[in-house]
């Protein structure tokens, strides 16, 4: 089997628990001493670092949420002095405020290790050529896979997103064996290749590592067929580190969690009580080894299940998490971008030509590409007999939405009072995608 770190990846449960316990004890001390916010939270429930004696005590600790990150924007939850932070990443947050994460040198090394392990789980070695089409920038996808691939020793090609014909040329000329991108981009790539009459056999691709957005098994089969590769699922979120929190080996149940770094729990969505193996609930992570911005029991809002048995496919003992099956909040993932309805509402409320509180969001997948349509009621006052005045409002919404969300949305103006008054947020969202 192709292990990157065999000792960890096949560690016995007892040894793993011992390692996790040791790291958790250290982590709780560090955050208690260095992050006033955590200290206050623990003091409030009368919890001392010394109460945490093993990984089994983790459920005594309070949860951390995205709201906590926002409330402490930008650096409030950092547990080391700023000079020890060597990199920042950020992802979109609910009201336009970014979620900021900082990495120390060691954090980046740990993350690269996770990326390298992930690629190895997909079967990559230092003989491979890895083409990375995730965005490079504040988004963790590009740089995360980049350093993982370098750590593995593979030839790493930092292509980033866009210019698909050029990507196809590079794939062919550099003979990439592995591609990392979103699954919808993989489909788009296949379509563009078909249009340009370039056959998969002209490329050297064998492996695809796909993540950053939810995808279905039927999409996996389609990608494998059209690009003639094996497609693997990678999971991550910037708050925890980025891609490589867990990685699928082809096993039907799910993805191996790098649990020596990221301790996963599944909790009941309503009671927040921890659940056992094979029980469906919200995925919660504790970043056991992180220095820059350690998170304790961070609620991902992703719905999953865990299984602690040794993997029948690859023999790894790393706990498996089921492919994410939904969200416990109303966040939408569109073309890999996190979109919160509240962000959309904020934009709409800022434009005088529309009634910002009356809107509907429709998400669909057309030809494997996510599309988002926002219907919003036009205000009666701006309506006139001339097309240009109405069109200007529509364009304003379109423009502001693009700069807020980072993706294009189709804006449809509808008559005042034509959208049903919402009975709660989810009634305003129609997700037609079948994932």
């Amino acid at each position, binding site marked *: 089997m192709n292990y990157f770190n065999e000792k960890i990846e096949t560690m016995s449960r007892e040894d793993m628990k011992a390692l996790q316990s040791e790291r958790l004890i250290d982590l709780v001390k560090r955050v208690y001493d260095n992050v006033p916010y955590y200290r206050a939270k623990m003091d409030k429930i009368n919890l001392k670092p010394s109460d945490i004696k093993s990984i089994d005590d983790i459920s005594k600790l309070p949860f951390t949420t995205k709201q906590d990150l926002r409330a402490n924007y930008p650096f409030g939850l950092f547990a080391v002095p700023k000079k020890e932070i060597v990199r920042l990443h950020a992802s979109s947050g609910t009201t336009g405020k970014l979620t900021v994460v900082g990495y120390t040198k060691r954090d980046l090394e740990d993350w690269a290790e996770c990326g390298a392990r992930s690629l190895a789980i997909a079967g990559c070695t230092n003989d491979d050529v890895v083409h990375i089409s995730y965005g490079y920038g504040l988004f963790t996808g590009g740089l995360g896979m980049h350093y993982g691939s370098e750590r593995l020793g593979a030839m790493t090609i930092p292509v980033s997103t866009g210019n698909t014909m050029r990507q196809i040329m590079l794939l062919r000329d550099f003979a990439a064996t592995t591609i990392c991108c979103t699954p919808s981009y993989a489909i788009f790539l296949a379509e563009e290749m078909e249009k340009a009459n370039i056959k998969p056999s002209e490329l050297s691709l064998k492996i695809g590592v796909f993540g950053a957005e939810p995808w279905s098994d039927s999409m996996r089969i389609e990608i494998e067929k059209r690009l003639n590769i094996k497609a693997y699922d990678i999971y991550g979120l910037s708050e925890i580190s980025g891609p490589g929190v867990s990685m699928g080996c082809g096993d039907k149940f799910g993805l191996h969690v790098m649990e020596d770094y990221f301790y996963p729990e599944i909790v009941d969505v309503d009671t927040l009580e921890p659940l056992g193996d094979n029980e469906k609930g919200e995925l919660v992570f504790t970043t056991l080894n992180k220095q820059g911005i350690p998170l304790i029991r961070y609620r991902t809002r992703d719905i999953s299940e865990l299984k602690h048995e040794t993997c029948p496919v690859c023999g790894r003992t790393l706990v498996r998490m089921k492919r994410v099956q939904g969200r416990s909040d109303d966040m939408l993932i569109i073309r890999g971008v996190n979109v919160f309805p509240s962000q959309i509402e904020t934009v709409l409320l800022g434009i005088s030509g529309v009634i910002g509180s009356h809107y509907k969001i429709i998400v669909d997948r057309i030809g494997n590409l996510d599309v988002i349509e926002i219907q919003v009621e*036009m205000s009666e006052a701006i309506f006139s007999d001339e097309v240009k005045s109405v069109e200007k409002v529509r364009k304003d919404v379109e423009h502001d939405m693009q700069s807020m969300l980072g993706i294009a949305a189709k804006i449809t103006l509808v008559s005042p009072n034509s959208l049903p008054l919402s009975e709660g947020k989810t009634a305003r969202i129609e997700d037609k995608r079948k994932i």
Partner: protein
Amino acid sequence: MLVNQIAVFLENRAGRLQALAKTLSDAKVDLVSLNIADTSDFGIVRMITSDNKKAESALKLAGFTVKSNDLIGIEVEDVPGGLTNILLGLSEEGVDIEYLYSFAHTKEKKAIILFKTSDVEKALAILKKHNIN
């Protein structure tokens, strides 16, 4: 002359124009002219009816977004060149036209031209100068 027109916002989905027409027929309002300006996302129906006030209130009651405004209306001979001369007069004086449409009185052999301009006063003065009403 000034002609009152009502403009109605039309969402781009099936059945909206039919709903509009039905609202008018239920209110026993007759259409004199009907014109639709459309984009890929929405349309604006511009119309003149037998009773604009009645039409406007019926449409508002039915949930449509309606605005009424005045257009300049001129009667021209329904012969080649009828429109050209008038437009020449307007363009020479720098009056621009936002949009224009027409309908024909088949019995009287006359065409009615309706147009929207930003400078109504000036346009009316020019038309008067050319003896056009």
